[in-house]
């Protein structure tokens, strides 16, 4: 039996506007979701825009606190109010959708990748640079990019920097929110290959949030389908074509343009 690394149990989050003057019915962004991600797998979360998949990811990362339910990541009870982000931060990291917004325009590539080392006071500056250059090499960025600024990079290169900066502390889990959606096919392919390679070599567990069903079918082991904040089903991609499915999942995957 494989060990769950992330456990989400009956989690809800609403964005109701309860003020003194009006009490609107709370709108659930995430509504009673239960799922478990196993160590070492690539877990997909798919749904249309507004389905609540990003809200769910933010709760797993600890950026948002759920209204109800409990979340356990790597033995840390996230819903316990004593846990703070920096305890978790070395173990779970995030890569954002937009390669333009995820890097500080005033900082060099090297600085951005090294940031976590600075924050946690790891090593001296020579050691940090060494670790950064080694990681840059792994994500196929040449040394010459160390002193460059984000505006001098292409979208694919920025995404590589974002991935490298998420990996510098050797996390166990990487959450990727639409990490390849904004990229051209050729760049998308190279980033997906890179992630697969890193997953193997660094023993990563990947949580992959996307609306791109082609990518899901290629990339993920198991997939959770979310609609209107509710979990519709979790399926195994290998047996996707033979297993019976929830009607929404069938509808969703039928809408992929015939290949």
């Amino acid at each position: 039996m494989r060990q769950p690394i992330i456990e989400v149990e009956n989690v809800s989050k609403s964005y109701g506007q309860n003020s003194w003057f009006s009490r609107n019915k709370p709108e659930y962004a995430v509504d009673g979701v239960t799922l478990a991600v196993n160590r070492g797998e690539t877990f997909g979360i798919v749904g249309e825009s507004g389905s609540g998949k990003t809200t769910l990811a933010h709760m797993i990362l600890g950026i948002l606190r759920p209204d109800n339910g409990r979340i356990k990541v790597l033995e840390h009870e996230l819903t316990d109010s004593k846990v703070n982000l920096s305890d978790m931060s070395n173990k779970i990291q995030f890569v954002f959708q937009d390669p333009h917004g995820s890097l500080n325009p005033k900082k060099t590539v090297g600085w951005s990748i090294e940031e976590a080392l600075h924050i946690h006071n790891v090593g001296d500056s020579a050691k940090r640079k060494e670790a950064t250059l080694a990681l840059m090499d792994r994500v196929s960025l040449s040394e010459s990019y160390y002193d460059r600024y984000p505006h001098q990079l292409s979208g694919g290169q920025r995404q590589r920097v974002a991935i490298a900066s998420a990996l510098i502390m050797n996390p166990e889990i990487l959450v990727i929110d639409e990490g390849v959606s904004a990229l051209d096919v050729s760049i998308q392919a190279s980033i997906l290959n890179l992630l697969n390679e890193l997953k193997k070599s660094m023993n990563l567990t990947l949580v992959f949030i996307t609306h791109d069903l082609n990518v899901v079918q290629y990339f993920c082991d198991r997939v959770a389908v979310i609609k209107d904040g509710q979990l519709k089903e979790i399926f195994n991609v290998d047996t996707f074509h033979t297993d019976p499915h929830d009607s929404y999942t069938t509808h969703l995957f039928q809408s992929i343009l015939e290949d």
Partner: protein
Amino acid sequence: MTLLRVKDLNVELIIKKEAYPVLENINFSLNRNKTLGIVGESGSGKSITAQTILRMLPDDAIVNGTVEFNGENLLGFSERQMRQIRTKEISMIFQEPGLTLNPLMRVGQQVLEAARLDQSIPANKRESEVIKMLEEVGLKKDVYKKYPHELSGGMKQRVIIAIALICNPSVIIADEPTTALDASIQSQILDLLKSVMEKRDGALLLISHDLTVIKHMCDDVLVMYAGRIVESGKTDIVLSTPKHPYTKALIDAVPRFQKRGSALDIIPFSVPSLTERSGLSWPYLSNEEYLNEYFPEAGDES
């Protein structure tokens, strides 16, 4: 019948006082009742092609060649004549529906505004025409009185299509019309585009980076790379038996269920930036003899 014919089109853009070619030797024609696709990555020149046809390039761009519409060269038209063409003959649909609609104006008003440009619709009939049009693109009547923020992305794109169609154009150019939309809505919008153009006996020029969209929609396809057409032909033939190594690489790079567990093929040469293009012998752009040398396996497949 040919509606739009692009002949020997060359476009150069001026960057820091130097001219760089963005389009080279573009030739194609768009026929009635057909959908033509242009596929390529960013920097391939697919959007520039559309902008050249509608004359929306910066003033200092150098354009050579002809763009014939109904036998007349659009490149010789005055700005005033072009405005007529853009509103009544060739409509354009953009990627991001949110940016095209005015957020402070009711949706119906915005379609009405477009209808006003068509003198053939009498003033007292305009409103009913607009409602008819909204229904044709699959929207309910009450959308007329709504504001853009009250609509979903798919509904907004339907409104954009209504605006594009209200003056009965014979050509629609759609630049990545569904890229910003969810997969389940994508196919609905594409099918809608196709059906309305068929009904009008018009032609659709569809620009996309997505091969599955092209395959789903287009009769013919142009594959563009670094400002040139590297391959063209019937869509099913081009996509099933690609001749050019770039087309082949592009197809192989798409993630699919069948490729699970194996690495995706990387396109070996990315699109060169505008300033790097000239003077460099870029493998994909070299002549046939060299192509076979660079990519020996490509020729064997067909």
